């Protein structure tokens, strides 16, 4: 047998072909984000667009956590901590950067970032946008650095122990950030000009949070990052690196025996996931114009874990769908619409999936039908009696999660992707390129 490296060289495509493969994700990202921002955006209510924004950020968080918890099977409970690191770094660069470079902490972006009322006169992309995107990327890198520092020693631990260390990390980040000095308020921007950089960047507002940040995050930026995160994660999953991740989850001892450097790949997954979480943190901070470490404690980490588990450990499309559902669900429960249409759609989808697979299983269909009927009747009773469902929405939300975990413990899609569920006997052969 010839050596793998030689064989690989003879099978490599020409060097220039990397360009289209490099560019299409960017083009697709810009097109989709542009459509959402400029075509869908103006036609939906402010509330809907806010929910979409949060859903997008949650998708990035859930998909990145999938790389650690889903692919490598390591249980990280500190994902919100990385979001906080990235968010604060991005916020401090954008806020104090604006003050130092532009003289004020006001918005200095273009049309893509304009969230205020009325039409915006100005360029499509402004100088503030570049500062904002740069700061998000630096935030991601800072979070990745934190991931490396936490990951290198702690990823030798297994299971519960790793979970405790990551949980502790998240809390340490929260406490440290809450101990930072007061921020320099926007109306005192002139004072900030005399303070040196290294001191300025640490004035993060402490327990009051870091407020009055310029808001740049729009549907465009969020969904651009969502598309890129999805493509990068999918490319990772279908690669030798992704196989190494999955082998660690399946059987660590066998993975080592096959020559996979287990610690190295765990750290790799951790660093990557932290990078995306850090960027999402930047988007989050510049969406509401404030970031508070108190909101990014372990409860937030659990939200993301729930999304990953619900979607199916290791499924990118599952995590995406779960992030969307779990963002919308609490909002839907405020003012409950009729349930039976959703039930019908679900039933039809399941029936179609079963027909495609050629095997009929009646029990899940009956369960869904009965559940829909019961919920619909309960809803009508509540409406007739004038009971406000919104008061009970968190109980409903929790019960739905329990039902889901009892009926489908492997999550929505298990380890597979949505489209692979419809094929016969697993995924189609992957041919190197994607």
């Amino acid at each position, binding site marked *: 047998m010839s050596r793998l490296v030689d064989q*690989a060289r003879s099978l490599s495509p020409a060097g220039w072909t990397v360009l289209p493969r490099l560019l299409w994700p960017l083009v697709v990202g810009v097109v989709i984000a542009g459509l959402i921002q400029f075509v869908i955006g103006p036609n939906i209510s402010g509330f809907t667009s806010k929910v979409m924004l949060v859903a997008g950020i949650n998708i990035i968080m859930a998909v990145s956590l999938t790389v650690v918890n889903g692919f490598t099977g390591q249980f990280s409970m500190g994902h919100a901590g990385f979001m906080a690191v990235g968010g604060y770094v991005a916020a401090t660069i954008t806020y104090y950067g604006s003050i130092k470079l532009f003289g004020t902490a006001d918005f200095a972006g273009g049309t893509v970032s304009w969230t205020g009322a009325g039409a915006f006169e100005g360029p499509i992309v402004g100088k503030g946008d570049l500062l904002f995107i740069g700061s998000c990327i630096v935030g991601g890198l800072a979070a990745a650095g934190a991931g490396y520092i936490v990951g290198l020693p702690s990823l030798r631990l297994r299971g519960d122990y790793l979970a405790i260390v990551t949980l502790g990390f998240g809390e340490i980040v929260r406490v440290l950030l809450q101990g930072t000095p007061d921020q320099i308020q926007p109306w005192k921007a002139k004072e900030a000009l005399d303070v040196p950089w290294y001191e300025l960047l640490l004035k993060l507002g402490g327990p009051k949070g870091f407020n009055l940040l310029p808001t740049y995050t729009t549907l465009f930026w969020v969904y651009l990052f969502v598309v890129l995160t999805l493509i990068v994660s999918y490319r990772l999953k279908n*690669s030798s690196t992704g196989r*190494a991740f999955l082998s660690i989850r399946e059987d660590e001892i066998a993975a080592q025996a096959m020559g996979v450097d287990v610690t190295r790949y765990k750290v790799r997954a951790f660093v990557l996931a932290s990078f995306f979480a850090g960027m999402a943190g930047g988007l989050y901070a510049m969406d509401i114009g404030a970031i508070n470490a108190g909101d990014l404690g372990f409860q937030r980490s659990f939200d993301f874990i729930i999304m990953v588990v619900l979607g199916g450990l290791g499924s990118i499309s599952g995590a995406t769908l779960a992030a969307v559902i779990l963002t919308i669900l609490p909002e839907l429960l405020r003012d409950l619409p009729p349930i039976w249409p959703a039930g019908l759609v679900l039933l039809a989808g399941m029936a179609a999936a079963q027909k495609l697979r050629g095997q009929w299983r009646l029990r899940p269909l009956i369960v869904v039908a009965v559940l829909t009927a019961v919920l619909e009747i309960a809803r009508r009773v509540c409406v007739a009696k004038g009971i406000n469902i919104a008061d009970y929405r968190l109980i409903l939300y929790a019960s739905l999660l329990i039902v889901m975990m009892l009926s489908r413990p492997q999550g929505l899609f298990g380890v597979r992707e949505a489209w692979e569920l419809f094929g016969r006997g697993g995924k189609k052969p992957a041919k190197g390129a994607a």
Partner: protein
Amino acid sequence: MNDQSPYVLDVDEISIAFGGLKAVQSFSMRIPRQGLYGLIGPNGAGKTTCFNLLTGVYRPDKGSVRVDGEPLTGLKPHQIAAKGLSRTFQNIRLFGELSVLDNVKLGSHLRGSHSLGGTVLRSAGYIGQERAIEDRAMDLLSIFNLAGRAQEQAKNLPYGDQRRLEIARALATEPKVLLLDEPAAGMNPQEKIELRTLIRQVRERFKVAILLIEHDMGVVMNLCEHITVLNFGETIARGTPEAVQNDPKVVEAYLGTE
């Protein structure tokens, strides 16, 4: 690479104790190129512990192991795999949720380089390597008559196929020495005969030395050129199958004394 050494695997007096239990004591073994050696002994004799010592799962308290003249002392399991020592497991350890093909592809992992940038950007080098890995994996699967099941999840294969897939995966690492831990366990007589042919073919085709642990005397005595017998961690006999079969100590270990 040290071509002067006639032995591809050279184990020199390795020992390990777990607390007071001396699991393996002064175990030595030399396997020539493309040798087919056997390691037998009653249950609990320390055979699998020997494999774990060779592959770095445990570190020996004393002694040294060399592959092709290169010492393995202090190396981690994945580094030892890279030096050319690959193994299968007594209780099959496949990556169950992954496809049969992906299992074999993972065997090629240590022969490639996997940069994150190349992976995410789908560089030309990355794609070439991915194609090469796939081609090699498919070749191996055809040799083992598993090509038709390449896309199935490994956990869904019948038992005999899983054993063969483990051997295929181990061979994908391009080893110099292949360690097989009870390859015939759970097989019926027909499968055992096929396994004997397969192991001989593997040795010829992949030019590897093979060391196998086996309880089935039919397989061991028929296949191996040289056998080492362990009992309570100590080597009690070594030699050709005939010599070992007639050794009074071996008979005693297996059947007891009168």
